[in-house]
């Protein structure tokens, strides 16, 4: 009788254990911020982003972190000034959090709500369009985050007494692959 009870219980309970979580790891990434000034424009690139996504019950939570000092504009003086202006020594990371439905992977374009922590401030960007492209088992994600200096309470740097533009769009290109190493 006890064996019968146990078998019946396991049969009904088995489905609860059949739901396995998927995990995603960020592989290659290129993040580029763009700064405009009347005299010249400048871009800085980082390839040092790290990210992870955990899918659970139809929803996937993603976290991406980039060290502020990893951005390279090609000019060390400009990069050091940038580090000072964005309080990069005090807040060394830019973090991006978002939640997407698991079935978003089937769309070519998704609109994500992003929560970004940068320079000690948090800003939310709604419905940021991101292009998805499946390449074998990898997913390529590309988009532009419409960030501004004022969103993060950053004083705009100036050159020859002329400040840079408030808009600092960040171009994001990422490659994600499923983490098959998890148990």
């Amino acid at each position, binding site marked *: 009788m006890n064996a019968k009870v146990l078998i*019946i219980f396991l049969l009904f309970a088995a489905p609860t254990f059949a739901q396995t979580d998927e995990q995603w790891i960020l592989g290659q990434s290129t993040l580029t911020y763009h700064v405009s000034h009347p005299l010249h424009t400048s871009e800085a690139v980082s390839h040092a982003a790290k990210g992870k996504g955990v899918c659970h019950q139809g929803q996937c939570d993603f*976290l991406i972190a980039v060290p502020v000092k990893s951005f390279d504009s090609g000019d060390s003086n400009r990069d050091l000034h940038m580090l000072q202006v964005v309080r990069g020594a005090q807040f*060394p990371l830019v973090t991006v959090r978002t939640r997407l439905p698991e079935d978003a992977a089937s769309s070519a374009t998704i609109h994500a709500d992003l929560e970004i922590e940068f320079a000690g401030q948090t800003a939310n960007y709604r419905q940021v369009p991101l292009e998805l492209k499946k390449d074998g088992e990898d997913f390529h994600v590309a988009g532009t985050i419409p960030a501004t200096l004022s969103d993060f309470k950053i004083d705009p740097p100036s050159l020859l007494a002329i400040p840079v533009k408030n808009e600092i769009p960040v171009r994001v290109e990422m490659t994600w692959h499923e983490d098959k190493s998890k148990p």
Partner: protein
Amino acid sequence: MRAIQQEMKTTANLLRVAALAFCGLLPVGFPAFAQGNGAGVAEISATEVSGAAEAAPDASALPARAASETTAEFSSLASEAASDQTQGNTPADNSQAPSLQDLGLSPAQTQGDPQLQARLDKRSHMLKIHQRLGLITMVPLIATVATSFGAGGRSTSTSDRWAHLALGSATGDLYFTTAYFAIFAPRIPGTPTRGQIRVHKALAWVHGPGMILTPILGAIAFDQRSKGEKVHGIASAHGAVAVVTAGAFGAALISVSFKF
């Protein structure tokens, strides 16, 4: 009699099995309702969960152990749903969401360094002053070069030479004050010099010695002219050295103003 007792036992066992199976199904259903897409759905799920939690202790037909486990399960689900309601169910609130530790970042990469920030702040402050003074220095520098035509040459006046000397002195004072803020701005260890700033720093080795040599040669030339002599000897290089110095200074300014 025995047959009736046996039958009652069998019925009771079947009821127990059905109750246990029902308990096994419950964990499957409730999490799907707890993570709602809107506040309305979350509110409904919280009401359902809290109602079930209140009803659970009344299920006296259940074995005591199963009842306590069921109550615990309902309590955890109720608190999770309530948490979602009050905090908006953002990714940061979800216990399943990855954390910074999961990304493999070292403490050096995640922790702030207030001392480094203070050093950067001081560096930027001094270099801003350097930039402003450098621009201001351009004004008397241009004026000095402009008055050199009246100070030198075959026919000059005393007032022109004095004006040139005064402007040159002002230029020199501002120049070395500008240089002070650049030389003594804090360095940041581990940051090699790259980009156009290298040109700006290299040109300092031209206009720096030039700004020392030019007034020396100028003083000799002024003295010769004051005595009524024609400028001769090493003093005759004053003009050429001054032009090269002014040119290097202007190039240094352009090297950090425009992108090449």
